[in-house]
């Protein structure tokens, strides 16, 4: 190796590879790679495609359960939801493109995750999104919010998949690196799931969808002179989404999947034709030969390098059963999409590329795929936070509550979700604004899916392990709060530069926390995505491992919602309240401090309390349910009141009112029930081992805290609903 090294003439542009990685390329190839080949190595070994910094840790996540049909490693995860049906889902980031061009970046993010899901045979039935923006007063934030929301709606609404949930945070750490994580959930029959492993010597390799253009090719530095005659015009790396074509592609693929013609299928995502063909061949232990002249081109004069590295959207690669080309072609023609046989499978284990009758590339598949670098990057454990000292409370209790419900992180997201079609397909049983979105399983008399995306980055920053646990637990709790059984998660790990040991330490800690929570809650990871280097000028984002959870509601008629239902009902608090103010929104937004350790997550208690609440919902014992999260008990009560227009009179549990009211202790829920049934509900909870106390009764048009004051539901609503529209209108 060292001999080779001495003799090596390194090319001027390694296309992002390190010298060590280039040495490995030489070893694998046994010669110098040409430009196309080097480009392929470069994208295949990029952080994005190879997970080289994160692999070691991701392997430690629990991925199995009796209901898991497919864990990580395929385009999306698959779980069995009974009755011969499967839910297929994944979450993926499109952070960097969305910062450069928020509309198209977010739109193509939605398009990409949809393809990951329908490529496995699923009809996409729900979209969710987890968004993080910089400080509201940062000059770019408003424009980014507007563009991202328009882009998500523009794409999702057009393809006809309801966007049913999400989450949004604002924090200065995202000023230069916003996060746009999109999740899609689809439904399929368990015996009709499609995978990406190529098989069958000689089988045709088929390209379908949109034509290939020069979109998103990152080798600009090397080859840009050839990209355009007009050297003034730097070719943008932004891709433009075409949701109309995606809609046709969904319908055409699902129609093809109803025939018996597909051997394997895979979307062309990041690194386009390169990664899709490599992955398919590698998974199936096959070789592949591609005639690049056959690839439908949008522009003239495209080079092999451009064909292989283009990230044009709305394209798929399919291995067909031999002889079925005409049948498949007819379907894609009907939907006015391109269809081309571009190659065939071989048994050489190599990828051979031809262009204009010449061989322009020849690479071994397995060595390239399997020798992809794996780094054990140095990391340091995040030091624990100092205990929170004495806190001064600048505002009276109810005033603080009024301010909190209208603060950037707590205000209603209605302005956002009303721009999303959350109803299309007619199965949305719980619209945005509740704890989890609920979408009926189509054509099933009772069953529904419940979904939630969550992460509390300020907890993750203060303590990555607890923060990782909490993110998983919160999705589990949100799904539980609507009465559903949480089944599995997808994760989207957004972090800064992994080459800095303290960032790598955040990553390692978060994975650790996620693992513990998944194990304790029987809630495995079935798919995920990693986005690193979210960093500007050496300042990383808050560690943000966004978690998307999916559960099943066996009888949608028994679904719980958070709105109070009637006046005069008993309000019960489930779970232990200690008044943990460290890292709470109250502490940050009212007291101006981001300090202290985050609330600890006791997973055993989490499970006990959640299982007890779910049982009550399933048995129809409670009329409303809501988990206590950001903002604590007082905010949770306010949310139930605002959702219904009904007030309440409560007495807080004993202790310091601010700590008890705004502390963010975990594993807690609020439930209501007819007053006469309160004793029975309390008894049931206690029997299940869940602590419970009665806080008071619903009724009136204000939320009254004994000894602390009252605030009208109207005032709460106007603060809560007012902030985002006013901010976006430039009034704040």
């Amino acid at each position, binding site marked *: 190796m060292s001999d080779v090294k001495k003799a090596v003439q390194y090319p001027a542009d390694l296309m992002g590879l390190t010298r060590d990685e280039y040495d490995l390329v030489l070893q694998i190839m046994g010669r110098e790679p040409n430009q196309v080949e080097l480009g392929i190595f470069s994208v295949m070994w990029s952080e994005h495609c190879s997970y080289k910094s994160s692999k070691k840790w991701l392997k430690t996540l629990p991925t199995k359960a009796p209901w898991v049909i497919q864990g990580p490693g395929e385009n999306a995860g698959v779980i069995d939801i009974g009755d011969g049906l499967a839910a297929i889902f994944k979450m993926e980031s499109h952070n960097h493109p969305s910062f450069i061009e928020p509309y198209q970046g977010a739109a193509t993010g939605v398009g990409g995750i949809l393809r990951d899901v329908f490529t496995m045979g699923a009809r996409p039935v729900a979209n969710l999104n987890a968004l993080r923006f910089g400080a509201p007063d940062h000059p770019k934030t408003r424009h980014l919010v507007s563009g991202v929301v*328009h882009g998500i*709606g*523009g794409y999702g*609404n*057009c*393809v*006809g998949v309801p966007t049913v949930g999400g989450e949004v945070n604002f924090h200065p750490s995202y000023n230069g690196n916003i996060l746009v994580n999109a999740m899609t959930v689809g439904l399929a029959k368990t015996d009709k799931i499609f995978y990406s492993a190529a098989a069958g010597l000689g089988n045709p390799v088929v390209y379908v969808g949109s034509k290939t253009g020069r979109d998103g090719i990152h080798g600009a530095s090397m080859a840009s002179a050839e990209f355009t005659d007009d050297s003034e015009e730097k070719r943008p790396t932004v891709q433009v989404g*075409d*949701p*109309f*074509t995606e*809609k*046709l592609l969904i319908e055409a693929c699902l129609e093809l999947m109803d025939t018996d013609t597909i051997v394997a299928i895979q979307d062309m995502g990041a690194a386009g034709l390169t990664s899709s063909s490599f992955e398919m061949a590698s998974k199936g232990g096959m070789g592949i030969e591609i005639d690049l002249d056959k690839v439908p081109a949008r522009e003239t004069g495209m080079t092999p390098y451009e064909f292989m590295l283009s990230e044009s959207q709305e394209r798929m690669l399919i291995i067909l059963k031999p002889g079925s080309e005409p049948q498949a072609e007819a379907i894609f023609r*009907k*939907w*006015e999409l391109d269809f081309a046989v571009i190659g065939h499978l071989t048994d050489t284990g190599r990828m051979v590329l031809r262009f204009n009758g010449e061989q322009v590339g020849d690479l071994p598949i397995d060595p390239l795929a399997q020798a992809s670098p794996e780094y054990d990057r140095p990391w340091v454990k995040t030091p624990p936070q100092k205990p929170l000292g004495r806190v001064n409370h600048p505002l009276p209790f109810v005033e603080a509550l009024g301010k909190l419900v209208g603060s950037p992180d707590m205000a209603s997201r209605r302005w956002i*979700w*009303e*721009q*999303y*079609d*959350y*109803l*299309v*397909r*007619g*199965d*949305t*049983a719980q619209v945005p604004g509740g704890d989890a979105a609920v979408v*009926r399983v189509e054509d099933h008399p009772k069953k529904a899916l419940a979904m939630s995306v969550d992460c509390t980055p300020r907890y993750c920053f203060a303590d990555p392990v607890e923060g990782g646990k909490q993110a998983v637990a919160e999705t589990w709790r949100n799904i539980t709060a609507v009465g559903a059984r949480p089944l599995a998660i997808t994760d989207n790990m957004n972090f800064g530069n992994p080459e800095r040991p303290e960032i790598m330490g955040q990553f390692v800690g978060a994975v650790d926390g996620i693992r513990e929570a998944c194990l304790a809650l029987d809630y495995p990871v079935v798919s995920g995505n990693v986005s690193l280097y979210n960093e500007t000028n050496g300042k990383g984002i808050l560690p943000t491992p966004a978690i998307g959870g999916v559960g099943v509601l066996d009888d*949608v*008629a028994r679904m719980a919602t958070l709105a109070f239902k009637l006046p005069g009902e008993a309000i019960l608090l489930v779970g232990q309240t200690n008044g943990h103010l460290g890292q709470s929104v109250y502490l940050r937004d009212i007291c101006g401090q981001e300090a202290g350790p985050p609330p600890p997550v006791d997973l055993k208690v989490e499970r006990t309390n959640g299982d007890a609440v779910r049982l009550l919902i399933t048995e129809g014992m409670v009329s409303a349910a809501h988990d206590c999260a950001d903002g604590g008990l007082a905010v949770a009560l306010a949310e139930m009141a605002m959702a219904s227009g009904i007030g309440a009179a409560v007495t807080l549990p004993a202790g310091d009112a601010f700590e008890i009211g705004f502390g963010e202790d975990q594993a807690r829920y609020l439930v209501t029930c007819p007053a006469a049934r309160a004793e029975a509900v309390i008894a049931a909870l206690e029997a299940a081992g869940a602590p419970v106390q009665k806080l008071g009764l619903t009724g009136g048009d204000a939320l009254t805290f004994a000894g602390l004051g009252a605030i009208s539901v109207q005032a709460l609503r106007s603060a809560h609903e007012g902030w985002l529209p006013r901010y976006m209108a430039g009034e704040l």
Partner: protein
Amino acid sequence: MKAALITFPGSNRERDMRMALTKVNNGKPPVDVWHGDSGLPEGIDLIVLPGGFSYGDYLRCGAMAAHSPIMREVKKRAEAGVRVLAVCNGFQIACEAGLLPGVLISNAGLKFICKDVNLRVETTASAFTKKYRKGQTIRVPVAHHDGNYTADADTVKRLEDNDQIAFRYADPLGTVSPETNLNGSVGNIAGIYNAKKTVLGLMPHPEDATDPVCGGLDGMGLFESIAESLS
């Protein structure tokens, strides 16, 4: 009732519509017709143009779909008196095809709007609304970006004089005012009829309000009216 449900490339609410039509037709689903077909089955008494984004809403909403081969046949049947229900993108297509007067442009706020709205039923003298009360308000969702109904003053006057306005955006008590104007439509118009009241176009989605679990039941009146009229 023998209904035909037309699908264009980019239609996406045909499924919602199929569920609603099936519900009021003794479990019998409508016939699915592809935009590229040039004929409709015999004996069809209701043609439905569903919501969605035909051709991506590119150029102008509904413009390209209005030229689909099937639309020639739809126009022929409509002239012969066959009922046409055109919802959301279907309404846009019907206007572009000349089945209804006027045009739908971008919402005044330039944003897509998905929410429940209150509609005042302006007339019950039609096959589509006879099961409602005149002046009744119903709550059904909208989901559109281009629902701003625009027509010249003469056209609007003609619509009003001939009782051709089907629904207007209102408050829960049925008051129609600038504050309840969802999207900038002239006169808060949410839906209109042709002169013979055989064609109804509307932006809201009554088909998404036909299930107690998903969206409520306020849209049922429309489908029950149609089913009763055509049985």
